[in-house]
């Protein structure tokens, strides 16, 4: 028997008054599939099952979801990593409103991203060629710019659950530091001023769920620590 027991969160606002868990039997033919492959097999059984997906190789960030209790990307999570006792439970990312099944409304997550002004700011006239940056300066962006906005981190963060409208969250703060750390960005002071309130950065309690779930192996907690250091250096 290679039938995998999958329990999946279902909710269609048009037909369901409340969400429920639906059981699927999926024949994996003994292969160590990715969770996304399993979702596709389930969609062949029930075309109404809704989930997002695009690149299927872990770079687009579409299919962040909660698999057996842990957030991650379905497309790069092999069954062998998550399945216990032949059972897999799939739920949408926690803490965001559900639109349908595994699809969540990421509006507030994107809003926090936009809030940190996620673009390079440099009002000095641009040279005719590129702005120069030493390899050492560029190295500071490694571990920051690779974020794919999948929201696995922010939706695993209790501080973000409680205050998603005020706490920027790990993803947004990682990007905030990506620009604070860029030698080409000149808006450091403005960026810091915008972050010094008790919520935006300081609601981080160092729980480090973000680090534990990031599918790209990034470390938002470290970036948040660096922002705090910069704030402290700037204000004292």
């Amino acid at each position: 028997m290679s039938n995998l027991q999958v329990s999946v969160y279902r909710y269609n606002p048009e037909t369901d008054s409340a969400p429920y868990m639906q059981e699927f039997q999926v024949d994996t033919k003994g292969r160590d599939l990715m969770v996304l492959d399993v979702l596709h097999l389930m969609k062949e059984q029930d075309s109404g099952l809704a989930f997002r997906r695009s690149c299927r190789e872990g770079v687009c960030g579409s299919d962040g979801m909660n698999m057996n209790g842990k957030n991650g990307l379905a497309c790069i999570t092999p069954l062998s990593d998550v399945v216990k006792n032949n059972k897999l439970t799939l739920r949408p990312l926690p803490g965001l409103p559900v639109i349908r099944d595994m699809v969540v409304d990421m509006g507030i997550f994107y809003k926090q991203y936009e809030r940190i002004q996620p673009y390079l700011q440099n009002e000095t006239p641009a040279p005719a060629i590129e702005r120069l940056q030493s390899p050492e300066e560029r190295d500071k962006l490694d571990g920051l710019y690779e974020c794919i906005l999948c929201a696995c981190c922010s939706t695993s963060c209790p501080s973000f659950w409680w205050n998603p409208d005020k706490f920027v969250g790990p993803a947004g703060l990682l990007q905030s530091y990506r620009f604070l750390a860029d030698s080409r960005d000149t808006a450091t002071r403005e960026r810091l001023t915008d972050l010094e309130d008790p919520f935006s950065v300081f609601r981080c309690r160092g729980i480090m769920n973000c680090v534990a779930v990031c599918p790209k192996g990034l470390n938002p907690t470290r970036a948040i620590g660096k922002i705090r250091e910069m704030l402290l250096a700037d204000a004292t």
Partner: protein
Amino acid sequence: MVTNITSFGRSGLSDWLMQRVSAVVLAVYTVFMVAYLLFNPDLDYYTWSGLFNQTWMRIFSLLAFISIAAHAWIGLWTVTTDYLKSTRLRVGAQTLIILAIFVYLVWGIQILWGA
């Protein structure tokens, strides 16, 4: 920037810094107390009140009292903003907390310098 008017220092950075500084003060005070008690196994009332009659000990203790007040305010304010989503409930809780902290602080000062 998220605005707020009920936090301790109106700034996340100053709250954060205060939380850490007060924690250090409380840690030092605790270590001192534990060490004092260990080195004075046969502690009696006169030795104890003698300690608190010294000015440096009163200043040290007052510092610890203020620290615990600030630390509690910042910490409990955070807890209320996390878990109490109804504004009325949250402001009510915050009022009670600040009142309690104030009472304990004044009472503490009275004990230290009174009599």
